[in-house]
């Protein structure tokens, strides 16, 4: 029951109580717009320096109020995930919910405290705004609703990848990365905002947004289909790709990029091999062209080209000097990063399309390039970078000074090369990490302990190696000495004592180019039984022969090719690391490019001489 006596009619004088209101201040509001509150959701502000044009705001907008505008003046950098696009807002549709702000991957968007805009019908276009950081009327207003850490709609952290602990892996070559389970893959795939920056950054333009979406939807066969559209090295790139996609990923601006590589690996591992073969064969031309293509080198570039050409109906023969196909992915990358059975699977898919691979066939000795020229309609050389460079410092001609690529090749082949009890590796790239970690494993297997030191010219932050490789090498007990310049291999009485180095005091000049200076006061000798040079690599172009070498056009040490990979000789194409530098996925991209060029040339030739 009520606490007031509403039935009481009260005295006749009751209204006089209201006189008290004369003593109270009136409630008056000023006519001009009130300043908005600190969280106000007013017109948009967009920091163009931060905005990368990913379009995620457009996707979350529930009112279809956002258009993406291409602005030619803005920088475009696909490798870094920057697109010259910015969002424009239709304030006839916007409801100021601010979801665009909360989801913006870079944190560029905010809403301001500006909230007044009106116009006559003729100026209706003023409702369509391309917001920058200045406010829609050019008047600076403070930020209102802006990104906060606890309300972010982007999940910044990656699903952790199960990996072997250092003590579990240091004595064997078991694969370190365990792979996602279905739930992890789904969660990781769900982080993707489908901006497509990865697609733009990938050398072979993999359909990563599509296969990530397919993985999220649980349609793994569809995912594999998307993968095979651009990359027959699917298992391999699912494990050892340099993943420029992840560098460009929009989520990476503030958080950990989507684990695109691991998702690809997950999809590939999830589908039975025989089914993968069927999926990969989709779109294959059933009528043979009757034309023959010879490819020298069974690495990623050569085999990708072979894959494409075989699907287009050409008869493709691949010549490989070594005993098994795969190129550097097999002979350079240790098994703990890339198990051989995965390479075999990728190659089996390619062979299943009818590609013939002749191993143990060296051009020059077993068959000459000229013979290939005569017998085939087109020839591709994709030789890779199989030869290691030497430092050529004093003492480096000692037999216990070895090249990393040679040792890795021997390790893959299971050849005995005399595992040393201690070794010093010169170099700061992935090859240096690969040989150091391989040697440490072999040492532990043989001696129970490992002693491997890596010396590199560069500071740690400038190492060419993948940071993950460096971290894992550390975990495996490898000593990494950055900024050490190799000075001399110390030899006493014909026996190798170690490597003498100087400290590198600076390495780049003011233009950012390499210009090392040494501190001679800080000299060290790293004792070891073996010194391994893991520096640059080069291509063995000797098989071209003097006459052809002289006829071909060159470009600063590399074979000169046109944008499609064709050399100055009409019948000869070149692709892969020897043209582009070392990178699996770039070699795959190159293989596609060259295949398209060869196919076009062959088709044209067929039309002329049916």
């Amino acid at each position, binding site marked *: 029951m009520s606490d007031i006596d509403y039935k009481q009619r009260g005295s006749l004088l009751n209204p006089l109580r209201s006189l008290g209101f004369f003593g109270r201040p009136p409630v008056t509001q000023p006519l001009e717009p009130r300043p908005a509150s600190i969280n106000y959701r007013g017109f948009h502000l967009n920091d163009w320096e931060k905005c990368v044009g990913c379009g995620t705001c457009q996707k979350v907008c529930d009112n279809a109020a956002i258009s993406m505008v291409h602005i030619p003046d803005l920088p475009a950098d696909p490798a870094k995930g920057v697109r010259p696009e910015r969002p424009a807002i239709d304030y006839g549709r916007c409801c100021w919910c601010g979801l665009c702000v909360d989801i913006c991957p870079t944190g560029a968007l905010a809403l301001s405290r500006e909230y007044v805009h009106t116009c006559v019908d003729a100026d209706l276009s003023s409702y369509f705004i391309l917001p920058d950081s200045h406010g829609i009327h050019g008047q600076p207003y403070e930020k209102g609703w802006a990104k*906060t850490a606890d309300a972010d709609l982007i999940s910044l952290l990656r699903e952790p990848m199960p990996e072997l602990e250092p003590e579990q892996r240091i004595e064997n070559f078991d694969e370190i990365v365990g792979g996602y389970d279905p739930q992890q893959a789904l969660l990781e795939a769900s982080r993707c905002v489908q901006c497509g920056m990865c697609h733009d950054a990938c050398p072979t333009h993999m359909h990563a947004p599509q296969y990530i979406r397919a993985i999220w939807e649980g349609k793994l066969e569809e995912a594999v289909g998307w993968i095979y559209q651009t990359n027959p090295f699917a298992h391999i790139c699912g494990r050892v790709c340099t993943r420029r996609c992840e560098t460009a990923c929009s989520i990476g601006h503030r958080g950990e990029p989507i684990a695109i590589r691991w998702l690809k690996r997950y999809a590939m591992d999830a589908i039975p091999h025989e089914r993968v073969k069927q999926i990969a064969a989709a779109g294959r031309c059933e009528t043979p062209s009757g034309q023959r293509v010879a490819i020298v080198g069974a690495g990623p570039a050569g085999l990708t080209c072979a894959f494409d050409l075989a699907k287009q109906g050409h008869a493709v023969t691949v010549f490989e000097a070594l005993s098994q196909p795969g190129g550097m992915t097999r002979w350079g990358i240790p098994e703990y990063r890339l198990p051989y059975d995965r390479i075999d699977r990728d190659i089996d898919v390619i062979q299943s399309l009818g590609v013939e691979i002749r191993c143990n066939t060296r051009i020059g000795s077993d068959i000459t390039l000229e013979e290939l020229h005569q017998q085939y309609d087109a020839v591709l050389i994709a030789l890779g970078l199989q030869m290691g460079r030497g430092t050529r410092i004093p003492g480096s001609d000692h037999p216990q000074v070895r090249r990393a690529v040679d040792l890795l090749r021997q390790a893959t082949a299971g050849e005995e090369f005399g595992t040393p009890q201690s070794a010093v590796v010169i170099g700061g790239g992935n090859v240096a990490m690969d040989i150091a970690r391989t040697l440490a494993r072999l040492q532990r297997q043989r001696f129970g302990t490992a002693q491997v030191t890596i010396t590199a010219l560069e500071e740690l932050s400038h190492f060419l190696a993948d940071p993950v490789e460096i971290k894992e090498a550390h975990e495996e007990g490898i000593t990494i000495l950055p900024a050490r310049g190799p000075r001399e291999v110390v030899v006493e009485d014909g026996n190798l004592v170690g490597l003498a180095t100087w400290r590198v005091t600076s390495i780049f000049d003011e233009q950012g180019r390499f210009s090392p200076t040494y501190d001679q006061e800080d000299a060290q000798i790293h004792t070891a039984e073996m010194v391994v040079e893991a520096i640059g690599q080069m291509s063995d172009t000797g098989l071209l022969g003097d006459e052809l070498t002289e006829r071909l056009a060159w470009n600063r040490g590399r074979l000169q090719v046109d944008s499609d990979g064709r050399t100055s000789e009409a019948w000869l194409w070149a692709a892969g690391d020897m043209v582009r530098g070392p990178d699996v996925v770039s070699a795959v991209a190159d293989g596609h490019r060259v295949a398209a060029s060869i196919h076009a040339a062959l088709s044209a030739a067929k039309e002329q001489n049916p």
Partner: protein
Amino acid sequence: MRPENYQAVSHPPSHEYEVFFGPNHPGIEGNYALKVRLHGDEVTAARADGGYLHRGFEKLMEGRLWIQNIALVPRICVPDPVPMEVCYSLAIEALGGLEVPERAQWIRVMQLELSRIAAHLFTFGGNAATTGMYTPMFWGIADRDLILDLFEELSGGRVYHIYNIPGGVRRDLPEGYLKRVSDTLDYIESRLPDYDNLMFTNQVFVRRATGVGIMTQEQALDWGVTGPNLRATGLPFDVRRDDPYLIYDQLEFDVPVEEAGDAWARTLVRRAELKQSLRILRQVVARLPEIDGPIRAPIPNPLAWNLPLGDVYTRVESSKGELAYYVVSNGGDKPWRVHVRGPSAMHAVQVLEHLVTGARIEDVAQIMFSLDACPPEVDR
């Protein structure tokens, strides 16, 4: 007026009229209309007309991602939007198995009660205006504005706060916010005697409301009446207490009832409820600073968020009564079905039609406002 309403009345006797009560009528809320048939000034029949509000929220929601709908739901009840946001969020949380952090639950209760006070102040004003008293309307709206100020500071929006999100709330409290809430509560409390003086003990209002639009408890139950309207017939039921959600079971508050079941009883229940809301808010202001922790459970990327197959019926006590959402997921990233059960769906159609029948034309607006019906809940 709708075409059906243009139909000519078939030769009524001279003392019978058909009157279009709304939508352009100060005594009607929103774009709503009653077509009443009069015998003299007595209503002999009434038909509710859904009005031109239909925005197809339920259909729209099926085409939007789970999270996008948070921008849509507050629009279903403009004067009391927070229950809409919370009830929808509770449904998504139940389907997705999300645990709302305790701090977020307290913040939600704070908003819900602020929203209830704002809604009741609004209703007092409207209700008084139906009897020709306009001062309570100005007061009600001006005092409600102070609460909107609080919402603006909290959420960036005065009316459509879009502040609750599946998993919790979208921002933590601004610095010093609870002090300002407390100050506003003080102010509103200090105003209550003014309202009593002006409206609740004002015989003009009391007598116009007493005995008008009477329903018995049996009728109320039969017609599906809920909330203050049901409590005004003597049934002490409140979803907050009897089907508790969030942290309402940790709060002390009474469920006020009246027995008479008339417009006046309903007004008295709201008046008492406003005080209970103040009481709840005092507890929130005292307790909230001690409750640390996140304001939102981790939620997946809204662009790739599938909820498991399932359905859920969530209920909250809005200022109008029992508000419920029935949400069905077919395992996808958008709702398969959202059914909004607004309390006004009952109050503004069947109940209103019943109550105005037999009433006098001058009481129709009073009855409507005493039911505190929110047409967009009907026409959602």
